[in-house]
């Protein structure tokens, strides 16, 4: 009825609460959110302008993020968008940046920056102070970072054309590292229905092995006492709790509570995860009205 590959649904049943609710929710368009760019406008000013134009905006758990119930035209076609007053961004991405606990004076690494949504949010939290290093290896995707950082008036960011696995070459230790890891993207099926059937188990294996390499590079780049936030838009435990489990075995890191969302899984199949993995968070479309997302906050110990 929902037209997914059977293997995928069989997996979901094992670890997603109310799987039928999820499948049903994913067949409806994802909730749209906009994040106010406070570098350029206040929340109240933007709300007043958009409401006067016929937008219906609903408050969310984050003060600068609105759920868009109704818009008179596409969100990317308004003058307010062109002037960089808001960014079209899912609530889950904003929650991930919230988890990073950014301070104005920090030096921050965004390992997979394109198209720049989280980078620009970090910059706004830093009030354009401190420094962000944004990495992206693909030139076309770098252009999307440029478009968004310029539009949002960001001037504390250095963009490097670099594979995130090579970050050690920069020889910088960061206060905070954000790794929004490339993944199988199961969580965005509401936006890309083709993913119901386009992925195979081997894709999850491939992503998982790549994620281990990336998170290792990220952890090595954090200064002692600093924080790495790891996130994906996948539901797969192999790309989420298993990755955190892997680094817990290998590095002196602590998993800190990540805030909003459902607790991380305690087991998958026969595998039992460590107790502290409960501190990671899962966001589900049918429960949290976001894209599917996973967030882990790791404190790097001395």
């Amino acid at each position: 009825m929902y037209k997914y590959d059977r293997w995928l649904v069989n997996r979901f049943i094992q670890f997603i609460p109310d799987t039928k609710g999820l499948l049903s929710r994913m067949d409806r368009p994802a909730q749209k959110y906009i994040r106010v760019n406070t570098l350029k406008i206040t929340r109240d000013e933007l709300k007043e302008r958009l409401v006067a134009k016929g937008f219906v905006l609903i408050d969310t758990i984050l003060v600068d993020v609105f759920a868009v119930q109704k818009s008179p035209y596409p969100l990317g076609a308004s003058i307010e968008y062109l002037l960089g007053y808001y960014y079209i961004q899912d609530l889950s991405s904003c929650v991930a940046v919230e988890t990073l606990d950014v301070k104005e004076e920090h030096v921050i690494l965004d390992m997979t920056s394109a198209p720049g949504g989280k980078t620009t949010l970090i910059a706004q939290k830093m009030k354009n102070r401190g420094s962000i290093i944004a990495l992206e290896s693909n030139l076309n995707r770098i252009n999307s970072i440029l478009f968004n950082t310029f539009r949002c008036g960001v001037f504390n960011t250095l963009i490097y054309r670099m594979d995130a696995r090579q970050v050690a070459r920069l020889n910088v230790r960061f206060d905070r590292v954000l790794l929004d890891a490339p993944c199988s993207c199961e969580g965005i099926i509401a936006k890309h229905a083709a993913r119901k059937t386009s992925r195979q188990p081997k894709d999850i294996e491939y992503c998982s092995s790549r994620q281990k390499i990336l998170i290792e590079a990220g952890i090595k780049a954090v200064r002692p006492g600093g924080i790495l936030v790891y996130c994906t838009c996948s539901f797969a435990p192999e790309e989420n709790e298993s990755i955190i489990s892997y680094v817990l075995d290998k590095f002196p890191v602590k998993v800190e509570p990540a805030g909003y969302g459902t607790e991380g899984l305690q087991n998958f199949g026969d595998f039992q995860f460590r107790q502290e993995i409960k501190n990671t968070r899962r966001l589900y479309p049918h429960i949290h009205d976001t894209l599917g997302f996973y967030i882990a906050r790791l404190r790097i110990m001395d």
Partner: protein
Amino acid sequence: MYRQANAKELTTLKRAFHNWGIFDFFLDKEILVNETDNKTKEIYLLAPRAKEILCGKDAYCAGLKIGELKKKFLPSMQGADIIARKSRKFSHIVVDENAEKLVLYGRDILGSSIMEISERLSENDIVVILNKNREAIGVGRTRFPAPLLLRPGKVTVTTIVDAGYYLREENN
């Protein structure tokens, strides 16, 4: 390669920032020059901490492009945005809502759609194009001196850059 502005460039930039009314805004920030392959000097604004991190590591992009330096400083869309927010007195025109939409598609401006012009504009002056909320929506060049800029039925200001440019580029 991003580098510090040399003494001559710095003098030109400081004078330009003074003329645009944004000299004070740049006092606690870093200004860098990036010479492109076609010898254009792009001017970037960068937070001081980011400048320290940049040292010795050549970035693809460092900060916010605020304009280009030829004989004079030509503000980019982002430079115009800073001018419109921070400056009290600068060369500008204010256009009506109809013209605003056209400017965002890169179109030039008819005299009849200009609602206001700043003092002492001459032919070939660079102006920030403002909408009725006084937000920068573009940068233009005057085709006539001030009294003639409001002439109906004639294009009187050429749009050089506009806030819709990047989106059009991205869609292409």
